[in-house]
């Protein structure tokens, strides 16, 4: 997609890290979702998670390709995905957490796609036209993802006593990691100032409104606010990302320079 548009270099020092935060978020969540393939609770769900993972992979690939073109140092999508080390990955910690049981996977995936659902419309007026175009395409996909995950949030939250207990436990575990999505830092401030993307306050408002309604219908309680802050978007990750990358990158790195 970015090939159709004129790439005129990076718009400031926050531009590349911002694109990588978005791309890495989609890639690492896809990598987690595809671990479910062949192991889901019902065949239709294997197909649904694979579908969502395919969309997320597509988003990551467009964003990496665009980031590489803007950066102008010859990095392609695979250079970003396979040849960066853990600390160069800028995904929020939320998406690298292990899948846990199906409840934990549902809550984590819902939390992130609901965030993307507020993000893509705001990016459609970005001063980076290729990013705006990627956002427009991705928003259509994310709308389906949100609908699918909302369905499971409600069904499992308001299903049986066991499913409710599992969902509440998952929510208590996962929810504190969502604060990072809305934490202001030099990148988000610069992005908002340059018109590249929305403010974190705008995103927080969108996300909180949408998720509160779903949690209420699902008869689930968000845990009370905590001072905990994850820092994946700064390149400081949990114990889990290293293993994700080790597995993802192993074959490629064993054959430097090879084509696949």
């Amino acid at each position, binding site marked *: 997609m970015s090939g159709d548009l004129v790439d005129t270099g990076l718009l400031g020092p926050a531009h590349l890290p911002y694109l990588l935060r978005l791309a890495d978020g989609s890639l690492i969540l896809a990598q987690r979702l*595809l671990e479910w393939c062949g192991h889901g609770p019902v065949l239709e769900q294997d197909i649904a998670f694979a579908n969502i993972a395919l969309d997320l*992979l597509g988003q990551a690939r467009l964003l990496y390709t665009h980031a590489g073109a803007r950066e102008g140092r010859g990095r392609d999508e695979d250079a970003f995905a396979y040849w960066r080390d853990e600390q160069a990955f800028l995904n929020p910690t939320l998406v690298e957490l292990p899948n846990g049981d199906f409840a934990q996977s549902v809550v984590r995936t819902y939390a992130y796609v609901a965030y993307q659902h507020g993000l893509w419309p705001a990016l459609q007026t970005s001063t980076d036209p290729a990013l705006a175009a990627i956002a427009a395409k991705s928003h259509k996909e994310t709308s389906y993802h949100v609908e699918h995950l909302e369905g499971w949030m409600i069904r499992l939250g308001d*299903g049986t006593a066991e*499913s409710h207990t599992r969902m509440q436990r998952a929510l208590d575990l996962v929810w504190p990691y969502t604060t990072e999505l809305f934490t202001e830092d030099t990148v988000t401030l610069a992005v908002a100032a340059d018109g590249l993307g929305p403010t974190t306050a705008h995103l927080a408002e969108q996300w909180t409104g949408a998720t509160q309604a779903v949690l209420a219908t699902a008869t689930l309680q968000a845990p009370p606010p905590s001072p905990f802050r994850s820092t994946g978007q700064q390149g400081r990750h949990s114990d889990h990302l290293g293993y994700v990358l080790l597995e993802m990158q192993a074959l490629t790195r064993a054959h430097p320079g090879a084509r*696949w």
Partner: protein
Amino acid sequence: MYTQSMDVPSDEVSASPALSDAEASATFDARCARGEFIEAKDWMPAPYRQTLVRQISQHAHSEIVGMLPEGNWLTRAPSLKRKTILLAKVQDEGGHGLYLYAAAETLGTSRDDLIAALHSGRAKYSSIFNYPTPTWADIGVIGWLVDGAAIMNQVPLCRCSYGPYARAMIRICREESFHQRQGFDLLHTLMQGTAAQQAMVQDAVNRWWWPVLMMFGPPDQDSPHAETSVKWGIKRISNDDLRQKFVDAIVEQAAVLGVTLPDPGLKWNAARGAHDFSPIDWTEFWQVVNGHGPCNRERLAARVAAYDEGAWVREAALAYADKQAARQAAAVTPATERRSPP
């Protein structure tokens, strides 16, 4: 001819309750002989139904178990493009499983019953999925040879006498031929690559060649269900004929790739107009079919674990659906009628 016959009204046999079993059976055989499609509501002999349930469910189980050996490389695919292709392919296999379970359900057996038969070991799946996938080249070879053999087996099923199965097979065959080309493309890229990549391909071909030839099933003289399956239009080409057709096609493709097929006895026989090949070791085939292949236990264990660990999810979804139905019923029922009796 076959698509036309799909539209032919089937009153002749649907009216069969009035006929004696012998008459219904004769009419049924005549329809099969004319190449007509049999549909779900048509009268059919019990053994025809049983044969189809066995074959379609076995096919469905193969698609689902077949997701596992390829799924083994989803997290490790060496480029984002290959990861995308592989994930889309494995997802397609899940879709094939769904159409096929649905086709089997038209014969009156539920998906739950079919899955229970798989998990208890009563139902089989294709033995080929009991082999491991230790290298990335295995993913290419599964596409090229395993899907290639599956297509060879399945294209004749698009003309199978049972309509729902035949229609599912048309769609499946289209997707499988796409998968086969993707597998070939993967291998072709590796064969243009480094010495290590080329060696990876040759090793994978060496391991898969004989198990793939076994996918066509035992030699014709040892095929227990063949004769009636041919009469009823469930099977149209014999195991040995399909196997020969496959070998002849693959020899040329192997030459294009630059890989050697691991059979010193493989050579062109001008008199027959076909390739001769060495005898197949059927001991290995029967060992794997009977549960002693390299991965039988872990494949089935993975399926059983997914099902058991997902039980609470399925129960919750049903409980929620019941609650919703009760809420909707309550919402449309006037309050006076909802009062409990005194």
